[in-house]
């Protein structure tokens, strides 16, 4: 995430609420890559991703008045909008029909690896993280976060009890946190 301190975030929120054009520029220049990345990861298709990114920015612009800084950071809010928009598209009947050949449950790890050349240069690259993270945990994160499956659906897909899904997702995040520190 770009380093935006609280003061700058407050100013950005303020100018967004005033619909300043400068705010859009700032927003796009600093956040579009992160949001686009998520969308691509979720949806896979670049064409779709472009349209979705537009939809996402419009949503952000329209709903900025509903954003309450007490409930969390601006980036969290925007990322949620991006993820939800992409997942909605992914799970929409139209998309499912068009892309029936994409086997979602089977090769999440392949998807992960193919996105590794998109990484944001960092001291701990995506590849490293993915390699260090237990496969089971990776899977949970992939299915839940990047594909939008519910706990129930995941339990059924992986043929594990619901309780296990819960404990695994908890451990996955703890583990992920450890790796990234």
């Amino acid at each position, binding site marked *: 995430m770009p380093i935006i301190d609280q003061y700058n975030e407050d100013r950005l929120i303020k100018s967004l609420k005033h619909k300043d054009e400068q705010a*859009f520029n700032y927003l796009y220049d600093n956040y*579009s890559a992160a949001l*686009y990345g998520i969308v691509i990861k979720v949806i896979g298709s670049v064409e779709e991703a472009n349209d979705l*990114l537009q939809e996402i*920015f*419009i949503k952000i612009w329209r709903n900025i008045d509903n954003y309450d800084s007490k409930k969390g950071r601006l980036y*969290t809010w925007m990322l949620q909008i991006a993820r939800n928009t992409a997942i909605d598209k992914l799970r929409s009947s139209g998309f499912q029909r068009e892309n029936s050949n994409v086997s979602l449950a089977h090769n999440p790890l392949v998807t992960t690896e193919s996105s590794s050349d998109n990484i944001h240069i960092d001291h701990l690259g995506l590849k490293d993280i993915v390699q260090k993270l237990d496969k089971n945990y990776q899977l949970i994160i992939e299915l*839940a976060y990047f594909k939008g*499956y519910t706990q129930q659906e995941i339990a059924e897909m992986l043929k594990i009890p619901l309780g296990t899904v819960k404990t695994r997702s908890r451990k996955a995040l703890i583990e992920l946190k450890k790796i990234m520190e």
Partner: protein
Amino acid sequence: MNVREYISSGIIEACVLGMASDRDMRELESLCEQHQEIKQALEDYQKTLEDFADRYAKKPPEFLKKKIQDAINNDPTNSSKTTIEKIVKDNNNILSLKYLMAASILFLIGSLVFNFIFWNQTKTFKNEIAALEQKQQISIVHHRNNEATIREYKNTLQLFLTPSVKAIPLSGVGNHVECNAVVLWNETTKQVYLYPQNFPVPPSGKQYQLWAIVDGKPVDAGLYATSGANQLQEMKKIPRAQMFAVTLEKKGGAPSPTLSAMYAAGKI
């Protein structure tokens, strides 16, 4: 509600990963408001996941920025919002204009009030100054009077100290015992001065007259000016005398003294 239990239940992680139901999400939101610990745990996990998601960041194609910008500018919901914004802004402007006018009028009234207050004060001050000036005038007069008196005393003193001047005391007579006087007689120049003490102001139409008794016969030595009250006054010159006396005569004097109206007398 056991916070520890809630945190270890994995429900927060499920929410963060987007797996939880709407109900669970809402419950978490309200619990965050009540328990800082829960809020903290949520934020920690969110951060972890977001940092992870950031690794997937990819720069969108160049053309997309302008396309999105245009879409936003042309968004119908967007423009209606800006229109509303504009109207609100204009209303605010008109409102501020009204406020400005109201404020200006208040200022005007305020300044008029102040003007009146100051004008009043100025009047009062002017009156006070006039009164003070009057007092000052009175003071000046008093001062002058004092100076005159001092000069008189000086002159009197001089006279007393002059060697050739003889001081002849006149004692009050009859009913007028308190009416003493001093006659100063300059033996060289023959000038005579009368200096009465405690003499009452003569009734209107009457005047004090000084007499010199020369060889048994009274000689007019001059009239004491009515205005002078118990002050030294120069009288007529008398070359020779054995006695002096003061009587009260009618204004303008008498050719010979009214003996019953004698106030003071003294031998030389």
